């Protein structure tokens, strides 16, 4: 019996059409657009200005505040300008635009392919190094990893959980990373274990990646305390609360962080970035991005420098399709539809989904027939039909008592609704407004 989470869940078609495509390194683009803030938390401060020369790996934006992260230059070249650029959020945000030349790394970076197993840094040094190298959560949330490693007083970490689930349809970047860089990921896991002070780590992988499970299970025999677990294929298994429930049986209490259950969850990509940062002294300047979708000519996985415009990846994957209807940054369930293919890749970009015209329009919106399918699929045990209706009618007192803030925005309810109701759109609105009200209440 494969482990899984109990409440809710849906089974969208997996469409892992890029699973066999090995990671290709994308050539360095002529011009990169490095967003100054690519993480959750306080915005970073740009350190360079127009005309400055930068080297690959050089610090170009500094973290400001406790929850913040550094940004490093992904290329060598001259800063063209520091200006607002349309990014994946649909708004223009500050970015550092660099004209790229041939790579010239900063001193101290180990670019050899050797895998270094010995962990020589102390716990505090590891956290410091992760902070310096600008490592953030690569699962998509981009929470600064060094902050996650700092356990608040009074709480104790028992397990490190590595998220290799990749439950979103179409995306295969984590899958390929586990197959091709499995050993590095496990070294990274050991580093994270040391940083947290735990002796047990669990790697969770969904059962539709048997090759990755086999590879990592074999490799994990040489690592102390790391166990690999196959999980039932069900969306959203990759959500950290659902992953903790499946692997440990513990539920993260409403409104609290996973550390309450003694668990810390990190993505496999983050573990790899931690390995590079600690063992190779290499800052986070590139990541694996999947280009996929029914409209894509050649579904591929690329190792991409941060700041690369998306149309360069699409070109390498066969070019812009004629029947392109929608471009999604991320997976189809939680990804964000983009305004154009000129937006740049950021640390949180896991995939680019090219959707054909026939799949781009929503189904018709019919009246709610109270079938309660949305209730049965919600992994957090909420009542989406009710939250959506309350948000639509702006009844904010009730949205709070009905636990709208517990929603993880997985989209299962919206996916399932036979009436085609835009449930998640209204619930997001409700979360937004209710969050504002709660925060203003706290300020008083």
């Amino acid at each position, binding site marked *: 019996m494969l482990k899984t989470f109990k409440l809710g869940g849906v089974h969208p078609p997996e469409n892992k059409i890029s699973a066999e495509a090995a990671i290709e390194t994308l050539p360095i683009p002529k011009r990169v657009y490095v967003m100054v803030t690519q993480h959750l938390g306080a915005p970073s401060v740009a350190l360079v200005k127009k005309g400055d020369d930068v080297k690959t790996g050089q610090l170009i934006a500094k973290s400001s505040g406790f929850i913040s992260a550094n940004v490093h230059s992904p290329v060598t070249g001259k800063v063209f300008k520091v200006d607002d650029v349309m990014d994946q959020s649909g708004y*223009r945000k500050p970015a550092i635009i660099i004209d790229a030349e041939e790579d010239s790394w900063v001193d101290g970076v180990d670019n050899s392919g050797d895998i270094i197993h010995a962990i020589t840094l102390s716990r505090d040094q590891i956290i410091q190094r992760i902070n310096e190298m600008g490592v953030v959560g690569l699962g998509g949330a981009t929470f600064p990893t060094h902050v996650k490693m700092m356990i608040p007083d009074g709480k104790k970490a028992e397990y490190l959980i590595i998220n290799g689930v990749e439950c979103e349809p179409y995306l295969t970047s984590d899958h390929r990373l586990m197959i091709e860089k499995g050993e590095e990921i496990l070294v990274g896991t050991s580093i994270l274990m040391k940083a947290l002070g735990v002796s047990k780590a669990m790697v969770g992988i969904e059962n539709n990646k048997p090759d990755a499970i086999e590879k990592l299970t074999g490799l994990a025999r040489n690592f102390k305390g790391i166990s690999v677990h196959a999980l039932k294929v069900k969306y959203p298994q990759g959500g950290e609360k659902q992953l903790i429930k499946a692997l440990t049986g513990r539920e993260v209490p409403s409104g609290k962080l996973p550390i309450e259950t003694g668990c810390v969850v990190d993505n496999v990509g983050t573990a790899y970035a931690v390995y590079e940062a600690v063992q190779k002294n290499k800052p986070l300047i590139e990541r694996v991005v999947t280009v996929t979708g029914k409209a894509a000519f050649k579904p591929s996985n690329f190792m991409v420098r941060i700041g690369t415009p998306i149309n360069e990846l699409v070109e390498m994957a066969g070019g812009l399709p004629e029947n392109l209807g929608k471009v999604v940054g991320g997976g189809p369930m939680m990804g964000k539809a983009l305004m154009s293919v000129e937006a740049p890749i950021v640390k949180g970009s896991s995939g680019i989904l090219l959707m054909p015209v026939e799949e*781009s329009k929503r189904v018709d919106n019919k009246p709610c027939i109270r079938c309660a399918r949305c209730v049965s699929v919600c992994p957090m045990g909420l009542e989406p039909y009710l939250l959506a209706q309350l948000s639509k009618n702006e009844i904010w007192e009730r949205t709070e008592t009905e636990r709208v803030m517990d929603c993880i925005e997985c989209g299962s309810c919206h996916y399932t609704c036979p009436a085609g109701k835009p449930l998640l759109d209204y619930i997001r*609105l409700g979360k*937004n407004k209710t969050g504002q009200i709660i925060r203003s209440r706290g300020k008083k």
Partner: protein
Amino acid sequence: MNNVILVAVISLSAIGATAAVILYFVAQKFKVIEDPRIDEVEELLPKANCGGCGYAGCRAFAEGIVKSGNLENFFCPVGGNAIMSQVAQIMGLVAEEKEPMIAVLRCNGSRANAPAKIEYDGPATCAFTHNLYSGESGCPYGCLGLGDCVVSCTFGALYIDKATGLPVVIGDKCTACGACVKACPRKIFELRNKGKKDRRIFVCCVNEEKGAPAKKNCEVACIGCGKCVKACAYDAITLKNNLAYIDFEKCKLCRKCVEECPTKSILELNFPPRKVKPAIVEETSNQSSPAEVTQ
């Protein structure tokens, strides 16, 4: 048989009478003493309960006036000066005459001026799309045209023009209650003076981006060039964050700024059409008569 009817009539009448007496005494004991002026003031009010005055309904407004005893900070925009003077009479005070105001949409990003670069598919609510992306035209400050303001207006003074995709304010119905100002997630609506003869001039843009990106998205965006500030003889225009703003208290409706604006971002409403050029000869210049200019 007669006895039964008599007994029934007498007993029911007795019950009725007892109940009436009890009710009378209870009503007297639990009577709420209220200043009768509250009822009088409330009678005069339009009873739209729109909240435009800032109070929770017309009754609350009336209570507030009577309890505080003065008319400071009390103005019913729906009733206007006419109603306020009547209310003042009851209170024995003098009502301050306020300029009638109207809601103004400070965006001219119509389908023609700000062509769509992407197609939106989803629920027609501005609050949601504001969080989703900058808008079909790409302007992050511009009107999304999905009608949250229309829904919020309880006086039916707003509708979305199908051709331009922008909301239109029906001057006769607008009471300047401020509901649309609150409803718009981008704060595009503003309550401005209705103006003499219903004429008003305003910068029809709230875009704070620099000139180049603003103009890229919309033909009639304010690029923050400052020509209007220089042109205004009454110091009514200020420039802040790449955006010009006309103070309606100071504006004398001379229309100089409208001519100066290079992107036609400043709008003049309800003015007669201008005379066709050649330009009006100014007294201070040494210009020769128009006939000579044509040589």
